[in-house]
């Protein structure tokens, strides 16, 4: 770990899915509370690995996405946190900022809003914008304050919700921009069925997709697989995915097909031959 590394984290904070995940009928239930406390330990170890390491945390809430914490803009708020003799100060700032903003966001949710589709796409694109600003020399900063761009930027997505078929195209677009920025996307699937979109995201950007068998031991998975930056992971044996589904969903019924009919003009996929393409007609 010679160079500083940047980590952007996207947390899926769908209240419904987290409620289902914490049900005691699951073999290994995990509550949001205990997940967050394990997650904070992981964040602290990332910061502790190297002083220059940077971190940005994005929350995907129903219908919106919010930047919860960013190590570059937090300096101003640092004074508002009470000092604690037993805690390393940056840890304390990080923990209280993240917990505070998650609490505020969840409390602000209306009952109706809680069922809205999760803002995962927004959170991923925001994290890409954030990394884009870190990696390009900004037009608004003078050369003097320009820092060395962090090496190996990566995005870690914690997912509990199933795939939403309308977000297929935006997620694909995000994957391609991540490839352009040389960003690795890691996916940690905590609860629910495997996400075909996020599997492809991890595969296409060279990251790893991990479906947790024991969600209650999430910290163990995190430190073993996701703490080392991608450059070091080649030396470790990080779990890889077995089979990747490259099949596509048809535009007409969102059904997974292995042989489809593709419009020669716009490449829309249909499961049956149609006389007129409904996308580009």
């Amino acid at each position, binding site marked *: 770990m010679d160079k500083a590394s940047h980590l952007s984290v996207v947390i899926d904070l769908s209240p419904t899915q987290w409620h289902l995940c914490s049900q005691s009928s699951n073999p290994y239930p995990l509550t949001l509370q205990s997940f967050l406390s394990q997650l904070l330990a992981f964040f602290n170890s990332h910061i502790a690995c190297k002083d220059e390491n940077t971190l940005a945390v994005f929350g995907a809430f129903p219908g919106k996405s919010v930047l919860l914490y960013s190590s570059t803009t937090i300096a101003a708020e640092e004074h508002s946190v009470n000092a604690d003799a037993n805690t390393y100060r940056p840890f304390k700032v990080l923990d209280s900022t993240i917990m505070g903003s998650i609490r505020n966001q969840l409390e602000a949710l209306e009952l109706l809003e809680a069922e809205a589709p999760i803002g995962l796409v927004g959170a991923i694109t925001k994290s890409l*914008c954030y990394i*884009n600003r870190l990696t390009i020399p900004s037009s*608004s900063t003078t050369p003097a304050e320009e820092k060395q761009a962090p090496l190996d930027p990566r995005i870690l997505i914690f997912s509990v919700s199933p795939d939403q078929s309308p977000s297929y*195209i935006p997620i694909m677009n995000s994957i391609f921009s991540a490839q352009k920025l040389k960003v690795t996307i890691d996916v940690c699937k905590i609860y629910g069925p495997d996400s075909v979109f996020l599997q492809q995201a991890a595969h296409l950007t060279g990251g790893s997709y991990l479906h947790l068998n024991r969600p209650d031991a999430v910290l163990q998975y995190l430190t073993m697989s996701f703490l080392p930056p991608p450059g070091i992971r080649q030396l470790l044996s990080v779990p890889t995915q077995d089979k990747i589904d490259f099949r*596509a969903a048809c535009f007409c019924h969102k059904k997974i097909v*292995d*042989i*489809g009919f593709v419009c020669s003009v*716009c*490449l829309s996929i249909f499961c049956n031959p149609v006389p007129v393409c409904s996308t580009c007609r």
Partner: protein
Amino acid sequence: MPPRRIGDDFDADSDSDVSILDDLEDVGRARGKGKGKAIDRRRKDKGKGKAKEQPYAWEASYTRSWDTVQEDEAGSLQGAVQDLIARGRRRRLLAPATAIRRTIIRHLILVLDLSSAMMDRDMRPTRFDLMLQYAREFIVEWFDQNPLGQIGIVGMRSGLGERIGEMTGNPQEVLKAISERHKLEPNGEPSLQNAIEMARSTMSHLPTHSSREITVIFGSLTTCDPGNIHDTLESCLKDRIRISVVALAAEMKICRDLCDKTGGQFGVALNEGHFKDLLFELIPPPAARALARTGSGAPANPAADLMMMGFPTRLPDTSPPALCVCHSQLKSEGFLCPRCRAKVCDVPTDCDICGLMIVSSPHLARSYHHLFPVKAYQAVMALVDTPSPAPGCHGCAQLFEKMASTMTNTTEGMSPLGRYRCPDCHNDFCTDCDVFVHDVVHCCPGCGK
């Protein structure tokens, strides 16, 4: 139509007195500096508009690398950078907002001029070296935006057309074909007709759903043809081949005709940067209606026809090894044809056994952003009518400037506050994110779609 005043246009100075003949263009020229994107006619004027600002490469007595980027009074490059950004913004605003039909499966023959005229040094280091360099960048970018397309390369040398690279969908193979400079050493006269006939015969068997395009980089002012090139033009029209020419020297009537009649684009490069601009304008998939407009016998709106495609399953690296049908090699990883279960090494490809076109869904998805472009953001000029403006960029959370900047307000289309607002979700974005969202991500972080 008003009579044309000779001499009021830069054209009169250039070698192209032929263009005075086609008075139809006066309509377009009256609009002044056309920056339109989709309309061919307006695009021609773009070159003319620029001509008033920048000298031709051969008129300059020195390399102007310091001209293009100028420091302002404070010694910073900010002004120049912002000018570039502003130009990009204006181009986006002028682009049509609705999704237009574009040909996505493209077949392109890149015709390179390898005649002795390419050794001219009016572009640094030579026209030839610059052409090779830009051609490489062009190929990489082209495959990035047209993942299902194929490129072949033909050279014009010693009065003959030379097949340099076979038509293929693999960017590495295309790049390899032009990687060896000494094999492409310029010599003799070029022959447009021979090269175009060769390109045409290469593409004659292609199915109707794909586009057939020829892009010529032409440095010479002569062409040495065995027959009547207008016959070639007629047969290209019949085959619905679109020809675009980037000329490095000056306008030639026949080049202009080839492009105009087939619906392609014609441009004369003024200098190194303009050469690259002209070439890279040919990268985005052309709108399909341009093709319908020119095809004389073709229906105005060709019905979209469907292609049958197979989406394979990728075998893991740990699966038991088996022979692939393409190279007969023993391998673990590979893709299974969904129809006949044959194992192929790489996609996209045609199955060697049953002929089904095998693609993976990411290959298709790479083209979808052309269909659903992000709406252009509007520059926020003042905050008076915004009740509670967001303190930071909605994308990257960078804080906005509180005060309007005095330096940028001269540039048209730029926000003095550095804020650009999405017309759908009404969130504000900074300049960097504006460029990034529209050029790279193709998805607004606020709308999430």
